[in-house]
């Protein structure tokens, strides 16, 4: 597939603006399906949490608060560099696009590294549901349920991060090939939308898994 470095206008569209907006609408619709994917899990979590608030607070007290807090800041930083990458693309500063995309990918990888360190510590703490779960307090099965949600939801989020880094590496490659310009950088914009969406998911994961345990600890 060869792509001109300048503006692309395919024959089914009347104007470049219409083409850009159509692509953008497609991405937003996809993100809404992602809202439903994560939304189902958030709904299930809410039902369990409201039924067993004490057990879920007790589970939350076993989170790695420092690492989780750092990761929240790390992900916000990566969203910022992603936004700057798009801004650089819009103003035609290709070298800065490469720089900011690389920064976003590195910060994303740091997030995953910290996340897997947390998983490792939970395994050491014997908090791996079904595999290796030791908990002597009351309502142990529901504390275990908290960890089921924790691993499932943060795991699905980490999977999205991994895919996101993959998408960014393709975008980086295409930027280096000179596929984008100030007139045409729609794929960068769409990749950015995906990345920011993952950030939004984490914001809620941090709120429901980490925050309630802080005062229980």
């Amino acid at each position: 597939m060869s792509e001109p470095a300048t503006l692309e206008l395919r024959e089914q569209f009347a104007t470049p603006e219409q083409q850009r907006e159509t692509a953008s609408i497609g991405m937003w619709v996809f993100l809404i399906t992602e809202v439903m994917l994560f939304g189902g899990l958030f709904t299930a979590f809410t039902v369990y949490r409201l039924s067993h608030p004490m057990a879920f607070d007790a589970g939350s007290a076993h989170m790695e608060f420092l690492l989780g807090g750092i990761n929240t800041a790390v992900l916000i930083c990566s969203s910022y560099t992603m936004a700057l990458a798009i801004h650089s693309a819009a103003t035609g500063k290709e070298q800065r696009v490469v720089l900011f995309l690389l920064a976003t990918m590195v910060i994303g990888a740091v997030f995953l590294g910290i996340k897997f360190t947390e998983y490792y510590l939970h395994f050491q703490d014997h908090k791996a549901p079904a595999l290796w779960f030791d908990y002597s307090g009351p309502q142990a099965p529901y504390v275990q349920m908290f960890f089921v949600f924790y691993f499932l939801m943060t795991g699905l989020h980490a999977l999205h991060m991994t895919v996101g880094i993959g998408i960014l590496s393709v975008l980086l490659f295409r930027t280096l090939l000179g596929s984008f310009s100030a007139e045409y950088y729609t794929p960068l914009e769409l990749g950015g939308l995906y990345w920011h969406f993952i950030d939004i998911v984490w914001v809620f994961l941090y709120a429901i898994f980490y925050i309630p345990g802080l005062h229980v600890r």
Partner: protein
Amino acid sequence: MKEPAISIKTYTWTFLALLALALATTLIGFLDLGPFSMVIAVTIATAKAILIAFFFMHALYESKVIRVILAGGIIWFLIMVSLTLGDYMTRGWVLNLGGK
């Protein structure tokens, strides 16, 4: 070349506001506010999500179609949560009525 809709300055303020909110939610988390802990945490998270969507994702500057799609998704999500909770949270009531 047309100027981008959002300036670097706006991005930077959004970034700083997000960090401040993350710090605020963490600090408030240390207080024991009972059931309100979760309410406040989710409210702050929603504020952060709105900042990210409006400024980083340009939702504020997009066309009406995209805003309608976004609103539709959120409304459908809220329907899913409220109907599910409407079921689970009221099951005890039904048992009490039919009980004795």
